[in-house]
């Protein structure tokens, strides 16, 4: 697995444990949810949070970022029709 380019610095918050992401797709899907929250829901985190709760409850043993992906997939059909940043 290739490390994301931004992991090359020494300023990462490692001292207190692990890094936030194990693979580039995890940071991508994290940021995609942030984009949807910010640009489609005007900063309201609750619609995504509800999907995340549902996704985690559906498969409690599933790796976290896969549940996050499932939550975002479930949120997409509920997005407002047209949105321009």
């Amino acid at each position, binding site marked *: 697995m*290739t490390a*994301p380019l*931004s*992991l090359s*610095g020494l*300023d*990462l*918050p490692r*001292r*207190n*444990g*692990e*890094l*936030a*992401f194990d*693979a*580039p*797709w995890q*940071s*991508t*899907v*994290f*940021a*995609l949810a*942030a*984009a*949807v*929250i910010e*640009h*489609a829901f005007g*900063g309201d*985190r*609750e619609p995504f*949070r509800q999907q*995340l*709760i549902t996704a*985690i*409850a559906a498969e*409690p*043993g599933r790796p*976290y*970022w*896969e549940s996050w*992906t499932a939550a*975002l*997939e479930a949120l*997409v059909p509920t*997005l407002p029709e047209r*949105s*321009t*940043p």
Partner: protein
Amino acid sequence: MSDSTHRPAPVSPVEQRVAALEALLTERGLVPEGFIEQVTRRYESETGPMNGAKVVARAWLDPQYKQRLLADGTAAIAELGFGGPEGDHMVVVENTAAVHNVIVCTLCSCYPWPVLGLPPAWYKDPPYRARMVREPRALLAEMGCPLPEEAEIRVWDSSAEVRYLVLPQRPAATEDMTEAELAALVTRDSMIGVARL
């Protein structure tokens, strides 16, 4: 389509799903140029427990700041320049010799991002989320944080709105330390409440 980026071709099914989401959401105009890189950089290197450590060290040194912090966490944390998503309604809970606080999110992974960054893997896992509510004393002991029988444990379940931060007790023999030296003592786990300093 999604090929305007220089990321390697997706290999696993979940990577393919994420690539499809990225393509779809970009086409919908929801992902501005550079947005993913910007968010990633923010949570990989600019936001993390070092922020919360500064808040704790300031509270240890400045009684008036501590008072403001416990009265209105969001505002006092913003004084040090920290805020943003998942930090809109911050409540700071103070550990004492008699009371130990610990935070959890039973339903998902709510966590005070501006002061602690993104949560560690175990915080998001089912055993922690379930057991910290059911048997906090046993779980804390297993995590290396045994508490005296007489200590009261308060478990704070992060809700849709509120995010909690634990203000750990200041260690003994730190009277001569500077704010920066004190901040270096503060660990992430102590601000979640699964460790004492």
